[in-house]
């Protein structure tokens, strides 16, 4: 069984795809999704998040961390699907917090800002309601936030 530790909490590998890996800690009711490559194609992105949906239902995941530090390409259709389709459903299934860790790259942060700007133009800021999205610098910071 593959595990990793953060702040004394053991996270167990739940799913390993070609572009991402998914870990879970029962005590914290927390899942961590690591992007393992520079780019995740939309089909794999959806597959990964649908797997997370199942975990939210079955394992009662309340807190999700998406560590995007390895990403170097931001894909707008994936982000649109996340905001418009996946996220509203997860609110009803019990997800409370979604933490995001971005690469420490100014241009990437600007690209994310540009993507969100276009999404808010298209769907309005109401799309943000529900799950709290928080940008953090590390997994440890997110764990401290919910502790």
């Amino acid at each position, binding site marked *: 069984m593959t595990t990793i530790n953060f702040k004394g909490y053991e996270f167990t590998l739940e799913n390993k795809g070609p572009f991402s890996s998914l870990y879970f800690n029962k005590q914290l009711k927390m899942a961590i999704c690591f992007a393992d490559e520079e780019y995740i194609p939309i089909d794999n992105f959806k597959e990964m998040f649908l797997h997370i949906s199942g975990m939210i239902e079955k394992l009662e995941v309340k807190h999700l961390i998406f560590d995007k530090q390895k990403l170097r*390409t931001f894909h707008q259709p994936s982000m649109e699907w996340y905001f418009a389709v996946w996220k509203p459903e997860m609110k009803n299934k019990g997800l409370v917090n979604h933490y995001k860790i971005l690469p420490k790259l100014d241009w990437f942060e*600007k690209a994310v800002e540009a*993507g969100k700007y276009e999404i808010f133009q298209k769907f309005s800021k109401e799309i943000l309601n529900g799950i709290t999205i928080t940008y953090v610098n590390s997994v440890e910071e997110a764990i401290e936030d919910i502790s």
Partner: protein
Amino acid sequence: MEASYLKEQLQAKEDMLAQTTRFLVQMQNDLEEKNKELSLVNKDIFDSISFASLIQKSLLPDTDILKIFFKDASFRVMQQLGIGGDTIFIKNTNKGVVFGLLDSTGHGIPAALLSISGTLLLKELMTSMEIDNPQTLLNLLNFQLHKTFNNSKSSIAHKEGIIFSYCSTKNTLTYSSAKGKALLLKATGEINELPNSKLSIGDEPNAAFELFEISISPGDKLIMYSDGLTDQFGGDNNKKFSRERLKKLLSNKSGETASDIVKAVEEEFARWKGINGQTDDASFMILEF
């Protein structure tokens, strides 16, 4: 698989670049639009303050009129923001002339409003009620200012200042001061600070300001100034201009005309200030007897 992955990633990168560029262009356009709006607002404010400055300056006495009552006279009022709380006034009376320098707290528009309201009140007291005693004028100004602005609901208006009454036949100056700053410069270069009260105008409704009297000799020069002059930060170590620096400068200029002394003080003030912003409204007046 690898080739299709790289191709898709390349396309996603191009899309990301195009999207970010669109966003940055949009942000730049928005900023330019905001900049235009701010420029218009800034122009309106600047024009308004420029005109208000003209109105406030028009309330200051004319130097030529001062020279009717004094052997020589000159002054400079340097408001920090074009308009401000410093003012100088003069009014002839049956016995001589009443004059003074007042410094309202703060600066900019609020201080200018307080300054003008104070000046108008003083003129009312001197004209309609024919009051020419500096002590009475200061006590009434204090009472009225406190009643109007510093009542149980608010405490927003305070002033410092000094009011003189000069009788040329007796060669005496009577004055009352609320932290007002004044110096008497003798023709010899000797310079003395005039005692003042430690109370500000508007602090206590029933404050009783003292009345002082001093004798003057022909050739003596009376200097009034606001603390914005001596409190100006600058110099090599960013310190205050200071009262001592002002006194030393004046002692060295005792034989010069009022306008030359004012010019020298103004130049030294500007040199001291350097690239620093002006700390407060700063005023300076010199009258020779």
